[in-house]
């Protein structure tokens, strides 16, 4: 199963490298939103809960773009049939899609988070960087697991651009709350780490529950 997941992931990354359809769009969207907040709030710098909320809502909305495109090649070029016709466990498809989404989000954040710090963040990232990195990675994990599940659910529907945000955003509310709450003290002046462990634990639990749930139901999503 791991070998099959690796094969599917390699194919997805190769297609993204050639088409550049997902990651550049997500990056551009994130930076545009930060610029809009910069002018819309008419403030040069944010801190605390406002900074944390702006960062995470933008990343979540950028994730919607990635999830909408996650099964694009499968839907339009018959890739799901190709996978169902191969002797591979369908869980491999979930693992590959979730891994691809995780890597896409990480690539987006490599550009979007420094852009956020430059355009909006008052205190700067320096001191709390390792803690922020942990929150970002756990947040990405949750968004990737739920994203792969929702993308598969929407893949065979005609209105998948509509279904993805309608399903994805409510399911990601716990991720948003945990990530925003965990990040808020890191963006204070001076940065603090109060309650960080509690929120990271909650994020970890959410991630584990959704990975297990996705593995359990993914087979049924691909049935005709």
């Amino acid at each position: 199963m791991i070998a099959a997941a690796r094969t599917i992931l390699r194919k997805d990354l190769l297609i993204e490298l050639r088409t550049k359809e997902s990651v550049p769009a997500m990056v551009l969207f994130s930076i545009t939103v930060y610029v809009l907040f910069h002018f819309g709030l008419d403030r040069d710098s944010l801190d605390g809960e406002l900074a944390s909320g702006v960062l995470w809502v933008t990343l979540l909305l950028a994730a919607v773009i990635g999830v909408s495109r996650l099964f694009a090649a499968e839907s339009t070029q018959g890739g799901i049939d190709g996978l169902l016709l191969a002797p591979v466990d369908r869980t491999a498809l979930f693992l590959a899609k979730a891994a691809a989404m995780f890597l896409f989000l990480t690539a987006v954040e490599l550009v979007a988070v420094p852009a956020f710090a430059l355009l909006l963040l008052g205190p700067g990232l320096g001191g709390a960087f390792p803690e922020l990195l942990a929150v970002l990675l756990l947040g990405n994990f949750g968004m990737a697991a739920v994203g792969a599940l929702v993308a598969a659910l929407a893949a065979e529907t005609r209105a998948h651009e509509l279904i993805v945000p309608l399903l994805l955003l409510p399911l990601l509310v716990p991720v948003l709350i945990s990530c925003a709450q965990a990040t808020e003290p890191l963006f204070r002046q001076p940065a603090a780490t109060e309650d960080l462990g509690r929120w990271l634990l909650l994020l970890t639990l959410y991630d584990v529950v959704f990975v297990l749930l996705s593995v359990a139901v993914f087979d049924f999503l691909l049935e005709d």
Partner: protein
Amino acid sequence: MAAIELERLERRYGERVALGGVSVRLEEGQTLAVLGSNGAGKTTLLRVLAGLLRPHAGSARVLGAALPDERWRLPSQVGYLGHEPLLYRELTGRENLRYHADLHGVPHSRLQTVVTALEIDHRADEPVRDLSKGLIQRFAIARAVLHDPALLLLDEPRANLDPSAAELVEPLIGRSSGRTRVLVTHDVNGALEESDIALGLKAGRPVPVDAELYR
């Protein structure tokens, strides 16, 4: 043991019956030709046999696997060539075949054998989106036979192929391949010539293969 046994097979899309009352028995190594006008249920039948669609009534047994419960036994034994080539346009032909070879656990040496047999080696490193329909069909055939399946499910397999290309694919998907085949085509005379059994379909129901079939 028969390669395919269908007994009053039925498949619906919502309320509409796409296939109904289809009964067929095909022995190993034989060819079944499926004929009928557009929308008669031919592709639906192929997709049910491939395990891509669940039958809603009746029984279907393919290569000993009862559908849909034993669908998991089919992929390594069935080669499916449908309307869509099931190739990614942004990948090269070779990358597509390598991808399918890896999913099927087929050694890459087999990939080279098939590519050479179909004379597509010289275009195998170009993206599929840049290839002609005939070449894409040859790559799709390569994909379908890569894992050396016992049963071939072929929907208009010679579509877009010129006569010399049609000759090239013959040893792999033609009668001389020795494989059990289900062949969907509009070429009635050609299909009757190369088949052991013919099944006519009209509005999803079996009908005799005669002049009335396409009316």
